[in-house]
């Protein structure tokens, strides 16, 4: 039998084995709103890469973007900031920058050459007054035209539409065949997506920038913008009566079951098709826009780094900023998320058909346009959404809508 001192020796040895040999790496508490199945799988790619580089990832997932951003802002103001917080590639975090509440990651950006591979639209959002305040992690395109091949077959449509006029013809054929031409969810953000698609495809990139970026009152009250609004309203006649309040994924489900023909939605819709075991090119198709020079609308997610003087936290922030933009991690994250990487110098062989299409278009700088939120602050964007959703649901004269939009964007 063992005596007392031998037991003590065994206990000490056991405890020695249990304690880690080296100190844990820099701890990073990350606030984000990626709580759905696909999104969680995507953010896990970042946490795995960070852990592999020696860090400790503390995940603080908060459902609903607005809530997560609220919590992040409150914590930053309250003095208990997270190491990193998720925002969109928009003006949402501009107020934080102006109040001096964020650390910049200029040295990581200089070391990895961000200004060489980031698209100009994204660069203009993350770089404020010459300093880099956010790490962009993906690019989503909100205005893809998805269509169900089964529904097209039933309506006798052989090829996918190549122009807006052909799209309206296709919608008419679907209506004649007794199917729902346009699957839509009646929520303001979805109406905003349909409008953005019309502005880009009917109005063109120049008008798009004049309205969203320059708030040019003459352009807004002009004939070209009137045509855009009329095309937007015309699409409403192809939507079924149960649309108000419907969630976007329920609308995608209508395409998956072949009940509806077309949906205008972002590339996150791919996740729904994939979950239903449908493949692009075979069961469904994706059209980024009409015409050889159609615009690729850019929106996405970024991580900001709240101000702190704690050396460990700063180390963690720089590690995060570096890891999130590594090409291989970018591809793995985007594959799970449904987006495309924020850099075009990646190996696209493991990306699906629609993502490859998107990446190819991104390489052409002249086709890059930012989403409305890139150019307008949340207040202006919200005011525009209110007017658009009222126009979609009610019979308002188009001239009044033009006047209201000009007034809303003049603020």
């Amino acid at each position, binding site marked *: 039998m063992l005596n007392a001192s031998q037991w003590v020796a065994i206990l000490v040895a056991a405890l020695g084995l249990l304690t880690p040999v080296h100190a844990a790496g820099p701890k990073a508490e990350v606030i984000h709103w990626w709580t759905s199945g696909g999104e969680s799988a995507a953010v896990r790619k970042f946490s795995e890469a960070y852990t592999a580089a020696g860090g400790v990832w503390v995940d603080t997932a908060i459902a609903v973007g607005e809530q997560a951003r609220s919590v992040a802002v409150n914590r930053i103001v309250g003095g208990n900031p997270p190491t990193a917080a998720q925002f969109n590639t928009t003006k949402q975090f501009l*107020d934080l920058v102006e109040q001096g509440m964020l650390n910049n990651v200029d040295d990581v950006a200089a070391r990895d050459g961000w200004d060489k591979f980031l698209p100009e639209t994204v660069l203009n959002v993350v770089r404020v007054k010459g300093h880099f305040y956010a790490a962009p992690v993906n690019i989503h395109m909100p205005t893809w035209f998805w269509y169900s091949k089964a529904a097209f077959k039933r309506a006798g449509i052989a090829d996918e539409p190549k122009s807006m006029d052909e799209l309206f013809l296709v919608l008419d054929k679907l209506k004649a065949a007794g199917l729902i031409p346009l699957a839509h969810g009646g929520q303001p953000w979805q109406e905003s997506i349909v409008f953005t698609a019309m502005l880009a495809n009917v109005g063109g990139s120049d008008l798009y920038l004049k309205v969203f970026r320059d708030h040019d009152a003459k352009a807004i009250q002009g004939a070209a913008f009137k045509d855009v609004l009329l095309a937007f309203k015309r699409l409403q006649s192809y939507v079924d009566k149960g649309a108000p309040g419907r969630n976007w994924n329920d609308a995608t489900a209508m395409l998956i079951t072949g009940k509806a023909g077309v949906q205008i939605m972002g590339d996150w819709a791919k996740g729904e098709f994939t979950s239903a075991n449908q493949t692009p090119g075979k069961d469904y198709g994706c059209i980024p826009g009409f015409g050889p020079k159609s615009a690729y609308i850019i929106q996405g997610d970024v991580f900001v780094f709240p101000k702190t003087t704690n050396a460990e936290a700063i180390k963690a922030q720089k590690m995060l900023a570096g890891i999130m933009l590594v090409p291989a991690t970018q591809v793995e994250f985007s594959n799970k998320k449904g987006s495309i990487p924020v850099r075009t110098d990646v190996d696209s062989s493991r990306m699906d058909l629609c993502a490859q299409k998107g990446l190819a278009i991104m390489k052409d700088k002249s086709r890059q346009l930012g989403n409305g939120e890139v150019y307008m602050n*949340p207040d202006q964007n919200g005011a525009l959404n209110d007017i658009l959703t009222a126009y979609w649901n009610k019979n308002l004269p188009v001239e009044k809508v033009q006047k*209201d939009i000009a007034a809303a964007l003049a603020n």
Partner: protein
Amino acid sequence: MKINSKAVLRHLVSWAALLPMAATVIVAYLGTVLWSLKISFTNSRTFPSDELVGFAQYVRLFNNDRWLLSLQNLAVYGVLFIAACMLIGFLLAVFIDQKVMGEGLFRTVFLYPYAMSFVATGLVWQWLLNPGNGLQQAVRQMGFGDFTFDWIIDQDMVIYTIVIATVWQASGLVMAMLLAGLRGIDEEIWKAARLDGIPTWRVYVSIVLPMIGPSVATVFILLLTAVVKVFDSVISMTQGGPGTASEVPAKFIMDHLFGRANIALASAGSIVLLLTVLALVAPFMYARARADRKEASK
């Protein structure tokens, strides 16, 4: 001398006991109201700023179609909700007061909806009123092919669906409180009324109702606060839709506080809401104060 210091001490003790509550009221309630008032005169966005812009936010508020619609919705909703709740609650209380069998069971059943959160109520009623899957579909499947009940997706009728859902929920509470008031009525009144040969309904309207005046006033105040606060039912039933048709002031303010990052406009909206409530309640309070003073001076 001795009596004086005892009185002072007693007052001091009472003041000390009230101090925490008084501090909370002054700092948390009044203080924040004054702070909101100040913010509504600035151009604060995500963070409070000290740059005063006069009445600019109020001007912008009243040029905003969505805000004007929300005020209109609040007025329509308020009138219908309070009237329907009072009427249905009073009738239910009267019926239960008739010493029916299973009175305890009925009381529980009618009060049960109030135990649900407004969010759960909103969700369930949204499913019920959905034209494709709810009541309309059920009645159509029973054979009435032309039956339509799609108020929830109609721009003009959607506010009435919110009234229906919340009246269903709150009537039970009104019933419970008025029943308590009715139970306080002396049996002798009924005997006297029967002797005089007055019909039952006349007794209720002319004699009982004035006697339960305080209960009715309490219920009215409770319902009024529920009307001003209405937010969760709208969010869970229609999310303010279709479009912005079922917008209410509370939702407008919340949206601008967080999503739109415009706390100045949201503060202006909340000050306007506060003034509206004060305008409604002040005459009522004044009338009661005068009645109390009359009672005291008799």
